[in-house]
């Protein structure tokens, strides 16, 4: 049919033409007006035939355009409510255009360029690339810093992308979560409301639908696929990324461990510089932490340069881990070494 003879219109030309047409119309265009007149659709449109494939194309294009932050509106005709064919589409100029009073200085442009660069490896790389294009659109130049910066956030956790998707859709998710010390993961069903990175670790802040309680999960302990449901979950106004970070900071401030470090060691330099560490008069360090297991991992990695004095929970975890390392790396007997913490239990 006609599609075979029609010149091939590139996808971006069709999308661009659709945005232009919908920006230019005040009352909006119906689907059939769009399909029969807009560049990229009209070439494939058949006036009396079946346009099902073209209509599906239009649905996908709408999603792609909205993904860019373009406010594509659907207006219901009150006289023919519920009639899909009478729906009108348009892009209201005020909601599309960046407000005129928003501009960025060359210092701000430089900072935002760096902020976008942070995500170059991560899952938000597409978003930050497009945000930069829009920033450049304003014509401002970035001040060039004398020192080169190459900051980078890595969101390697496989759970990040589906959780972010669930956040934007405001729906419940299910995932298997392995609590340290437990041997089997438990299935969680929660409403995620924020993804936050605290002290270098990604966490998802959630609300339990049954109890309404707020809980934070470490992405690295989500050990299976995240299932994004279609069950809607309303986000309370105070459930924000900011409040989730504040709650984590509160825990961080409240929990401390007392440790001895070897003077002049790498452990002394690094742990003294760690956030909120205080050095006591007797030379012992008081460090803060949010999670027992994480701080134990961190302290074990300093080996003989660190001795944990308090609390007993952290001390026992560290000793148990060190013993496990000794046992697992003993002389080879031809078999895979089996973990045994021998005697002392954590």
């Amino acid at each position, binding site marked *: 049919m006609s599609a075979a003879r029609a010149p091939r219109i590139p996808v*971006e030309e069709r999308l661009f033409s659709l945005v232009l047409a919908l920006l230019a119309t005040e009352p909006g265009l119906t689907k059939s007006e769009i399909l029969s007149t807009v560049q990229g659709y009209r070439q494939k449109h058949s006036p009396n035939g079946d346009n099902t494939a073209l209509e599906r194309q239009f649905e*996908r294009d709408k999603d792609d355009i909205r993904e860019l*932050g373009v406010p594509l509106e659907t207006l219901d005709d009150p006289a023919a409510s519920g009639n899909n064919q009478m729906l009108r589409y348009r892009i209201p100029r005020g909601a599309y255009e960046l407000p005129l009073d928003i501009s960025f200085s060359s210092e701000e442009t430089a900072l935002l360029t760096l902020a976008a660069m942070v995500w170059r490896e991560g899952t938000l790389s597409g978003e*930050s690339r497009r945000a930069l294009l829009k920033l450049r*659109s304003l014509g401002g130049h970035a001040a060039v810093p004398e020192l080169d910066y190459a900051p980078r956030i890595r969101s390697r956790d496989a759970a990040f992308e589906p959780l972010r998707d669930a956040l934007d859709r405001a729906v419940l998710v299910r995932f298997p979560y392995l609590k340290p010390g437990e041997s089997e993961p438990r299935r969680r069903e929660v409403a995620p409301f924020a993804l*936050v990175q605290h002290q270098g670790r990604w966490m998802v802040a959630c609300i339990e639908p049954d109890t309404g309680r707020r809980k934070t999960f470490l992405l690295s302990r989500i050990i299976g696929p995240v299932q994004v449901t279609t069950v809607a979950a309303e986000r309370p106004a105070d459930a924000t990324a900011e409040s989730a970070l504040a709650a984590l900071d509160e825990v961080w401030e409240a929990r401390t461990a007392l440790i001895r470090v070897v003077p002049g060691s790498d452990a002394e*330099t690094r742990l003294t510089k760690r956030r909120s560490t205080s050095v006591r008069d007797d030379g012992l360090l008081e460090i803060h932490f949010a999670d027992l297991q994480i701080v134990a991992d961190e302290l074990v990695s300093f*080996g*003989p340069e660190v001795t944990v004095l308090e609390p007993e929970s952290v001390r026992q975890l560290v000793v148990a881990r060190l*013993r496990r390392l000794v046992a697992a790396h003993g002389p080879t007997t031809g078999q895979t070494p089996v973990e045994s913490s021998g005697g002392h239990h954590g």
Partner: protein
Amino acid sequence: MAERRSSLHATDKLAFLLSLVPYLIDRGRVGVAEAAEHFGVTVADIRRAVELIAVSGIPGETSQYQHGDLFDIAWDDFEQNDVIVLTNMVAIDESPRFSAREAAALIAGLQYLSSLPENADRGAIASLMSKLARGASSEPSQVAVDQRDTDDLLSLVSLAVSQGRQLEFDYSGVRGVVERRRVDPLRVESADADWYLRGYDHLREALRTFRLDRIARPAITDAPIAYRAADVVLPDMLFEGSPDDETVTIDIDAAAAALLADYAPDEIEPLDDGRCRMRVRVGQFGTVARLVAGLPGDPIVIAPDAARAAVSDWAARAVALYEQAPPDDSP
């Protein structure tokens, strides 16, 4: 999959077109090369986009895309002088808003950069974030990174560069020996919570990477800087392998395998029980203990025996400290 990628590509191109038009309107007259540099794209990308814009428009009253319903450019200028001048505009005047996710990416990126001296003015940063939120077409997604205090060391590094003087500091390398190093700072890099300084090391007479949190007693010297960022091509990898590197075999829970990606494992071999085996390169056996001790996923060094012994000795020395020092106190 291919379909998905090509559609992503088309939305990127659409974002580019919607961003380019207001820029061209605003500039009035701009060279192709200048526009390419401004947007960080190739000259060919700009030419293709301009050619597409020049034939695009709205259906118009006749639904026939009449001449006045289309953008137009000064073709002679474009073809002969490589200059872009829009002579007819339709539908678009201003730059598009950010999407909720785009605004969230920039806001979280700014939060992540809060330790930079350029970010010391918290009031200015807060107003920049609120501008981004106001410039988004819907409320930015709830993604955030905890903010840190401005790092005094970064301020000093930045000052050394602007004054053109070498930075010196105590640094304990992997072998545990502390040396006073003198460095021309070239670039500050980071990966999540870890920050690094890359520079020309006058002691080693080579490019070196330093962990910021391992740097002690930093000071600006009187010696002038020999190299600046623009003079040196830094390799992309933070840590480059050296011929002296040792190869060790490690077993780890498959879920935690990605954490070893920085150590360039050759291939990951799946084992039973959700474990996997890989070979990674380390500077020397002494460092492998610190590496496996701090990782989740129960990593175990399998070979060579010398590396296993290094881990076991190191951990045993640490255990001994607990056995000799009871928690109550020791003088």
